[in-house]
């Protein structure tokens, strides 16, 4: 094992922010020691309450995260926030603006905020989100908040990482209807209608509630909470719901099932990463070859399955 990584882990377990931060970069940069460090995280102890907060841009996620964090900090808890912003597919860079929206809690000793760019990973949610959450747990955080823009696949991934998933909508943005249609109901544990001072807030809440009623689900019945994050209205109710869900999970078997699902997802991801690396990484299908095949597909001369067969055959698999 690399001594440098050893030192980082030692510092991490002492609660040192600098070590946590450098470990995050190590993993994010996907260098040679990254995988070893990643694997070690799985066996490093400590668990935190992981809360996912997701929703479309403009609904007020950061204000909400700020309030939730403040509440936990007020109870003397150590809080970590992982704020994921999209990376531009064109430039590969990113403008990470969540942190500035958390400024009224920033700077506290017991708080750690990390801005993460998605770095172009499929679905938008950073491949680093899971490891970063683990790092913060290992550092000693009692609560970790994972904030991300919720678009389709993202939200499912969040629900696999988080213990409690909060879906945030806001009236007037129209998206709560999308939320109902897109299957989000399946994965949200708590639904928040933020900016509840807006005119259609009540209607949005009602629509969500009736859609939830129609779900066939045993166990935890998701609730709808109305908030005005910028002035703190409804936050007490939200914290109560979070506590309620946490208590429910500690008692119910279906939490274990969820964790198993999450772990299965991680296995799939790990295998996928290995396979892609093996077949399409530096010893596999080259860039030029991939481009060539892609052109042939566009010219309707071949299809992706033929290409996949070729790739497998080249590596000796039938």
């Amino acid at each position, binding site marked *: 094992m690399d001594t440098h990584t050893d030192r980082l882990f030692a510092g991490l377990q002492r609660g040192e*922010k*600098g070590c946590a*931060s*450098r470990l*995050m*970069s190590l993993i*994010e*940069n*996907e*260098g040679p020691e990254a995988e070893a460090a990643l694997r070690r995280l799985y066996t490093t102890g400590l668990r935190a309450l992981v809360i996912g907060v997701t929703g479309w841009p403009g609904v007020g996620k950061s204000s909400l995260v700020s309030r939730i964090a403040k509440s936990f900090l007020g109870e003397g808890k150590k809080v970590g926030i992982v704020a994921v912003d999209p*990376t*531009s597919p*064109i*430039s*590969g*860079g*990113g*403008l*990470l*603006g969540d*942190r*500035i929206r958390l*400024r009224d809690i*920033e*700077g506290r000793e017991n708080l*750690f*905020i*990390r*801005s993460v*760019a998605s*770095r172009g990973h499929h679905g938008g949610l950073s491949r680093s989100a899971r490891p970063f959450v683990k790092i913060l747990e290992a550092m000693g955080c009692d609560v970790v908040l994972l904030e991300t823009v919720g678009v389709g696949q993202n939200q499912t991934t969040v629900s696999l990482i988080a213990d409690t998933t909060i879906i945030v909508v806001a009236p007037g943005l129209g998206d709560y209807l999308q939320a109902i249609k897109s299957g989000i109901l399946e994965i949200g544990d708590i639904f928040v209608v933020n900016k509840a001072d807006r005119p259609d807030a009540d209607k949005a809440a009602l629509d969500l509630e009736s859609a939830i009623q129609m779900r066939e689900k045993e166990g935890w019945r998701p609730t709808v909470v109305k908030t005005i994050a910028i002035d703190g209205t409804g936050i007490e109710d939200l914290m109560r719901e979070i506590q309620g869900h946490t208590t429910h999970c500690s008692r119910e078997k279906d939490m274990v099932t969820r964790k198993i699902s999450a772990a299965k997802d991680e296995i799939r991801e790990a295998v996928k990463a290995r396979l892609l690396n093996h077949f399409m990484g530096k010893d596999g299908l080259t860039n030029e070859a991939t481009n060539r095949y892609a052109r042939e597909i566009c010219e309707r001369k071949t299809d992706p399955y033929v290409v996949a067969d070729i790739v497998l055959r080249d590596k000796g698999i039938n």
Partner: protein
Amino acid sequence: MSVKKRIIMAKMGLDAHDNGLRIVSKWCADAGYEVIYAGVYNSAERILQMTIEEDADAVGLSFLGGEHIHYSKKLLELFKAHGLENVKLFTGGIIPPADVAILKNMGVDAVFTPGSRRDEILSGINSCFEKRGKGS
């Protein structure tokens, strides 16, 4: 490998003319950097915390009122005290020509004065990262 350079873009003290900060932030993001936008009203301590938590490779500061030497000095001192000498520092804004040398001697890696064009700024930032000395 997926290495990206991470830059914190901030203003310190009370001045809130953030036009330049926003524009240069966007230019940097478009050029492939990960920019952590810290906005206005930052103290040196706050920027220090951010630099640690975000493991930033550089901090970019924008000034208007004449406070550039005071704040650059303060931040560099804090970085030194916390073993962050590797973090690059560049500044821009209303900085009189005579102060450019003073800032560079203090340890500021690049200074951009008004009228600097985008390409000039981006290549200036690029070369900060390629420069050796002060660690890499």
